[in-house]
């Protein structure tokens, strides 16, 4: 079944876990009306009629203004700058004058790898780089062809620069605006010539973010800020017990309160609608409502823990990888000089984007328009089209900036809410979740439980590694076609391939069905898996009485891996003995196609962990914008500190316990030590993602450093459960 067909028609079945009724049960129809090369005109945001599209990505106005389309959502990872810069580089546009516009939902804007339009999984750059180079180059060639025709000169004598097509011999030029109409009539070539990397003027440099200024003076529009005339607001309360529903509510208890317009049921909850959000929020406090049910009402962190452990101890594993002879049988005892086995655990976590969930929608009998901070606009479009039985071209999805995404905004529950409420009240509605609602109705990064077993030779070198993983699904609500009854490929990230030379490898997986909602969260499968793997490798190094760096080095042959690891040892002064009471730990992996390694230098006193210095080396192919890359990895490193030490979601009586930042804790400035990020460039053929790779090696590097400092090995996160705390460093 082609991925295209699958993407166009799939069903979210009710057999998936409870805890998200509003995510399930909608059949998603086909989108056959969208096979257009040019951008589908967005009626709310129509470009000027005189703007000329050269293709779906480049529009040129007669006044010479170049508009570049950003298919990807901007949530701090800088895609709104870097990907249009790819277009501009090939096009030869004047970067100082380009306008950036978010795209509509259309096949032209789908990530080519899975033919689906979304922003996530650190795939924006890797997914679109080659496509955008071609699109920019193609548009450039159309402009050049138009100029060649007008001047009757060979195209080879022309080049593009700063928004002009220039005739090399005579230096005469034509502006893009003068050529656009003619250019649009040229048939674009199938294989446009790409600019040589050595000629890059924009890429490989650090460009100021296009939206930076708006983020410095309060004019940046996030979903929460967006206004449409006639808009009203909704405050939502969903069943506190996961999977439960409203059993009754009394509209009369609030309808007479100031500003209140209506009380509307939404999936698993109820919304108070008012003229202003404050009024809706206040009224919601007074609403008489009762909830009931939820198969999950007995669930607690303890019951989940029991469920995970029973799964790990049980049978019926799905073998997803088996290489080499030694692990053919499940029981590998007796085949090696020594066996070593350990268990590792990662915790449930909340996305806790700084901007809480929100969305604006206006639904009428024959149209549906949405404005919001979305990562999954195609899923939103198809869901709403199916729900309201509207042809897809009558559903318009507009995107604002996102105050953080981390995978949460790939889902469409908050979008559906806004649409349902708008339909009910007949006006544009913005739904805003309070922080408490957001924290307690997140779709969480699930906990994972691992058992890793190695067969070792006499010197302690691993000849075989078997990894057993117990994890709930993460992709189930975000991209259902990839998830089956017993498998979810995202859960296995980091386990299916490794650069460590291991003759035998085996991965057994148990897809656990739990009664709390789970989904992708920054680092997806890599985060928990590499915490386990890089802790385990470190333990093997200790067992073999080898330096952790030398041990890893001896297991690697890949050039890029070695280069990154060696650079890390160099930049972190790994070989120099640390000061008294100071210890170091490191970790290396390839995740999201990027090679990354972290070294952490710290001291531990009375369970207080003071981090002195963090060093990171990454090879993401080519850092198209080094400053954005560095900022992203620094930020990911800080995120990782929270994952390692503090962030934890727990459950009791079917409810999430944590509700705000006082009890769901994240990293803070005074715990942030100096972080150095070093970029190793290799080649554009090896482009990798950077948005979520930072935490992946930071977390095990911390655990490894703590072992080096104390001799104690911690195998479950967060470290706060072992009494460890981050000390202030400033």
């Amino acid at each position, binding site marked *: 079944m082609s991925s295209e067909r699958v993407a166009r028609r799939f069903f979210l079945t009710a057999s998936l876990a409870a805890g998200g009724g509003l995510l399930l049960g909608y059949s998603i129809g086909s989108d056959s009306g969208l096979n257009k090369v040019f951008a589908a005109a967005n009626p709310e945001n129509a470009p000027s009629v005189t703007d000329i599209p050269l293709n779906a990505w480049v529009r040129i106005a007669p006044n010479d203004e170049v508009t570049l389309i950003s298919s990807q959502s901007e949530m701090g990872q800088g895609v709104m700058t870097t990907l249009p810069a790819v277009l501009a580089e090939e096009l030869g546009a004047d970067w100082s004058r380009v306008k950036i516009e978010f795209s509509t939902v259309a096949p032209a804007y789908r990530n080519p790898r899975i033919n689906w339009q979304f922003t996530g999984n650190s795939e924006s750059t890797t997914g679109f780089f080659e496509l955008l180079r071609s699109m920019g180059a193609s548009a450039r060639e159309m402009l050049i062809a138009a100029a060649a025709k007008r001047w009757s000169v060979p195209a080879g004598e022309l080049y593009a620069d700063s928004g002009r097509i220039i005739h090399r011999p005579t230096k005469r030029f034509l502006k893009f605006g003068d050529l656009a109409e003619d250019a649009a009539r040229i048939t674009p070539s199938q294989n446009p010539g790409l600019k040589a990397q050595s000629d890059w003027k924009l890429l490989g440099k650090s460009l100021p973010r296009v939206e930076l200024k708006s983020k410095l003076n309060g004019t940046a529009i996030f979903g929460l800020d967006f206004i449409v005339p006639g808009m009203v607001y909704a405050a939502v309360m969903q069943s506190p017990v996961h999977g439960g529903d409203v059993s009754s509510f009394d509209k009369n208890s609030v309808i007479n309160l100031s500003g209140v317009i209506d009380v509307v049921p939404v999936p698993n909850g109820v919304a108070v609608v008012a003229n202003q959000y404050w009024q809706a929020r206040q009224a919601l406090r007074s609403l008489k409502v009762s909830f009931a049910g939820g198969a999950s009402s007995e669930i607690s962190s303890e019951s989940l823990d029991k469920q995970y452990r029973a799964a790990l101890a049980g049978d019926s594993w799905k073998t997803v990888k088996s290489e080499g002879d030694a692990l053919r049988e499940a029981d590998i005892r007796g085949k090696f000089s020594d066996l070593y086995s350990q268990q590792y655990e990662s915790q449930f976590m909340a996305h806790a984007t700084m901007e809480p969930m929100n969305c604006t929608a206006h639904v009428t009998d024959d149209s549906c328009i949405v404005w919001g901070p979305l990562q999954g606009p195609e899923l939103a479009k198809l869901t709403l089209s199916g729900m309201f039985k509207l042809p897809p071209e009558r559903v318009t999805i507009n995107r604002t900036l996102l105050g953080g995404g981390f995978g949460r905004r790939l889902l469409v529950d908050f979008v559906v809410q806004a649409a349902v409420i708008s339909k009910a009240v007949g006006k544009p509605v913005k739904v805003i979740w309070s922080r408490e609602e957001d924290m307690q109705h997140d779709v969480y990064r699930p906990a994972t439980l691992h058992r890793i077993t190695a067969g070792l030779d006499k010197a302690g070198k691993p000849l075989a590694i078997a990894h057993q993983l117990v994890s709930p699904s993460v992709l189930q609500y975000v991209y259902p076609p990839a998830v089956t009854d017993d498998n979810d490929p995202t859960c296995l990230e980091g386990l299916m391939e490794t650069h460590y030379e291991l003759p035998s490898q085996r991965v057994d997986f148990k897809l656990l069905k739990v009664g709390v909602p789970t989904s992708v969260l920054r680092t997806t499968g890599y985060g928990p898996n590499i915490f386990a793997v890089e802790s385990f490798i470190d333990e093997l190094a200790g067992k073999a009485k080898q330096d952790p760096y030398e041990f890893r080095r001896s297991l690697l042959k890949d050039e890029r891996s070695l280069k990154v690891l060696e650079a890390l040892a160099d930049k972190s002064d790994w070989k120099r003995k640390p000061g008294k009471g100071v210890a170091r730990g490191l970790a290396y992996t390839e995740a999201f196609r990027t090679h990354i390694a972290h070294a952490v230098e710290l001291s531990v006193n009375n369970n207080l962990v003071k981090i002195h210095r963090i060093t990171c080396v990454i090879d993401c192919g080519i850092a198209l914008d080094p400053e954005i890359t560095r900022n992203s990895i620094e930020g990911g490193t800080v995120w990782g500190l929270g994952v390692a030490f503090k962030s934890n979601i727990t459950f009791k009586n079917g409810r999430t316990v944590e509700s705000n*930042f*006082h009890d769901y*804790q994240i990293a803070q400035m005074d715990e942030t030590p100096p972080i150095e990020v070093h970029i190793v460039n290799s080649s554009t053929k090896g482009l990798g993602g950077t948005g979520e790779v930072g935490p992946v090696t930071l977390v095990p590097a911390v655990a490894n450093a703590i072992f080096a400092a104390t001799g104690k090995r911690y195998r479950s996160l967060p470290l706060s459960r072992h009494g460890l705390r981050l000390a202030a460093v400033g």
Partner: protein
Amino acid sequence: MRTTISIGACLLAISAALYATVRRVSSEPNDDAAARAAFMVAYQVFMHPRCVNCHPAGDSPLRGEDSQPHTGLRLRRGPDGQGVFTLKCTNCHQSQNHVGPHMPPGAPNVLAGGALDSTTPRWHLPSAKTPMIFQGRSAAQLCRQLEDPSQNGGLTAEHLIHHVSTDPLVLWAWNPGEGRTRPPLRHDEFVASVKAWLDNGGACPK
């Protein structure tokens, strides 16, 4: 003449000493046992989290039933007890409590004449010079500290009674907002025990 002067000087010295302390001057003879007993009653309130949290031993205000630092916030008393720079107490604490749990509590300011000013918050620690630490104090230590003008901010007995009777920050302890317990006595009982301690001569537990 000399005898009169010396007797007079002694009386002056004695009464000066009496006026300089917090002990209420009363025509009744001291009842040390009663004073000590009354202080022990008041001590239960002084050592309750609602009081201890703003009379901490360290440089940071405390919160909660278990008197912990404010999660994540690096708060400092500052020279005048109002906090410093971006994290002054009244940057978060307002002139009244908020509806709902985990919200910063508040109390109104008091104007010179004694009227309440509910547009301005009053929330602070004692100053750095006179930190008025309750946390960790034994009854004996606290009693002596409360009566020592160099440690109690120069308060007389009248001032002290006025403070516990009317200061919005004290009264707040009995209206602390959702999720916070009240001291184990009613406010009027607490005031009465402070009065009884001072009226009976202000003797301290040993």
